[in-house]
């Protein structure tokens, strides 16, 4: 019933109930063990060597017999059989505790005159199993190198593949015509989804497929983690890497005609022509700048005393970028990962965008305008690229690659676009020798 209850209540109620019940069970267990301790010290004991030793021995033997017998039976139906090692650990882990004691304690003295002896035996068995077996099982497990249960840190890939495998195996069973496990499991799942969930779970959540529910859970976990870390610069994610959404964004759709994308080395005159086209295009697109936000409007970086402001702004932007990167999980209601704001934030956060090359001083004014508030222009071009499905001719012109080696056909869109930004920031024809300038990484 647990999945049905969980799906019907809010997250807060769920937590409350969970911890309340945990507390209650903890308290009860403590109480009974206190009682046990008091009874040991203070109760009237009737020690009988034979009875006690035979009880202890028989308990152990019975446990082993039970485990071995049952495993023998179920191993016939299992593909992955339980080995002797597994069986030994299962048998060894048979600890006795509170229930045996309570049952013994409830015996009525009048009907069972040997009650004291029973209690003594029970207490001895409990002490033996708990202290001897309980304390030695951990080293034993390590000694025997028993396979431990995996930390249930399921990644979304594993979840996807678990479901995929289930469906696959059900399908294959159907093809074989074999009513096996998966067939019945699938039937039960479908019945569950169709009838039971609709009755027992209120509202929209009855239709939520398991994958999405899992995904929501992961989102929540990540969001909570992020908030707890104070939105700090260091992301507390389990995947410490610099891979972000932009690395996996799909390439631009290939052009309709299979044209060789590599433009050969251009002669100087042609380059000048292309640069003129570039500039004119940029002037046009600048007028198409739709909305501003404070990240894209950068003040003239040559103003004095702006360094601090820039650093602060940069930090803020990085933080927002990281939060928006987290949006790759928080995008189920709306796909925010492709929003122009995020793209601008991502590009604007590039620290080197604010580093001015000294040579740009000598460059004509129009180039300085290009170089400094470079983000809005370059980003708008990015917007153009993403939204424009057809390649216009002048955009083909923008595909000029700095003459630094053959362009592999079908090279990814991202490096092309980044190199494009480098082209845009070219201060002039002298860029030929300087394309390794790390204006942008």
């Amino acid at each position, binding site marked *: 019933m647990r999945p049905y209850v969980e799906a019907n209540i809010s997250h807060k109620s769920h937590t409350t109930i969970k911890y309340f019940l945990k507390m209650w069970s903890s308290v009860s267990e403590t109480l009974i063990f206190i009682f046990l301790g008091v009874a040991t010290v203070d109760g009237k004991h009737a020690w009988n060597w034979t009875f006690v030793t035979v009880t202890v021995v028989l308990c152990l033997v019975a446990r082993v017999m039970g485990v071995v017998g049952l495993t023998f039976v179920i191993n016939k139906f299992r593909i992955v059989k339980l080995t002797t090692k597994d069986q030994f650990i299962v048998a060894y882990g048979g600890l006795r505790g509170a229930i045996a004691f309570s049952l013994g304690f409830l015996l009525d003295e009048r009907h069972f005159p040997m009650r004291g002896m029973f209690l003594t035996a029970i207490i001895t068995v409990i002490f033996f199993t708990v202290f001897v077996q309980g304390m030695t099982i951990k080293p034993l497990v390590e000694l025997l190198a028993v396979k431990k249960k995996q930390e249930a840190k399921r990644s979304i890939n594993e979840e996807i593949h678990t479901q995929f495998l289930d469906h696959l195996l059900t399908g294959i069973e159907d093809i074989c015509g074999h009513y096996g496990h998966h067939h019945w499991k699938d039937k039960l799942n479908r019945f569950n989804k169709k009838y039971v969930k609709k009755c027992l779970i209120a509202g929209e959540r009855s239709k939520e497929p398991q994958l999405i529910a899992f995904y929501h859970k992961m989102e929540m976990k990540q969001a909570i983690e992020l908030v707890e870390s104070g939105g700090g610069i260091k992301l507390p994610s389990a995947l410490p890497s610099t891979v972000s959404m932009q690395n996996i964004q799909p390439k631009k759709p290939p052009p309709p005609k299979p044209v060789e994308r590599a433009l050969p080395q251009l002669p100087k005159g042609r380059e000048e022509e292309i640069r003129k086209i570039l500039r004119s295009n940029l002037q046009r697109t600048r007028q198409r700048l739709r909305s501003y936000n404070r990240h894209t409007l950068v003040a003239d970086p040559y103003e004095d005393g702006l360094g601090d402001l820039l650093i602060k702004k940069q930090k803020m932007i990085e933080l927002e970028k990281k939060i928006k990167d987290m949006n790759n999980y928080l995008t189920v209601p709306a796909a925010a990962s492709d929003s122009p704001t995020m793209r601008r934030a991502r590009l604007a956060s590039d620290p080197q965008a604010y580093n001015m090359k000294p040579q740009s001083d000598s460059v004509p004014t129009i180039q300085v305008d290009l170089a400094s508030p470079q983000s809005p222009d370059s980003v708008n071009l990015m917007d153009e690229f993403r939204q424009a499905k057809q390649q216009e001719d002048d955009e083909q012109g923008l595909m000029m690659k700095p003459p630094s080696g053959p362009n592999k056909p079908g090279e990814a869109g991202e490096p092309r676009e980044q190199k494009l930004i480098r082209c845009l920031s070219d201060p002039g024809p002298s860029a030929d020798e300087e394309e390794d300038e790390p204006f*942008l990484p």
Partner: protein
Amino acid sequence: MGALQSLPGQPQYADLAEKTGFSYDQIGVLHKRFNQLSHNEETLRRDHFNDIPDLACNPIRSQIIEAFFDRRNFRQNGEGTVDEIGFEQFLVVMSHFKPPSLHITDDQREKIRKEKLRFIFNMHDTDNDGTITLEEYRHVVEELLSLSETLEKNTAKSIADAAMLEVASISMGHMEPDEFYEGITFEHFLKLLAEFEIESRMNIRFLKMDTTTLCK
């Protein structure tokens, strides 16, 4: 197995048994099923699969059916698809789902794992280029979620994106912002599902089939 009276030609089974690792009984059962599915013809075609009623409510049925006609699963290093398959190829594809025997060495276990993961990889990689791109992965997630009526396009997309991001992080570690992650190659796929224990999960119990209750 009282239903199997006369197995047609035991010697030819010997050949198949050696190639695929099935026992004679299992091959007999599967042959019966093959004949049932193909209406006693020599070869099986896609529309024969469409006749199976239970398969219709499976969300990934088209991929499963395609897997039977995919040359890459025939263990002959072929590529591309075929339109009809004979019993031998049917058996070869089914042998991917054989449970590993109990006492095998680690090397053999590794080999079996790779085979099974290769099968799944081929199912994802529909255009045979050796990588699973973001589009293909999105398609997979969409298919999985296709049974639910409340599917929004964006949900599947974002789940697939998140999954892809995770793969990229695991396999590539650190990437520059302008590098591009082409797609999941088979090595990355192996690494991704290293803890999945597929050799014990991707199995069907072939011998327990009761041919008298075969559907349709």
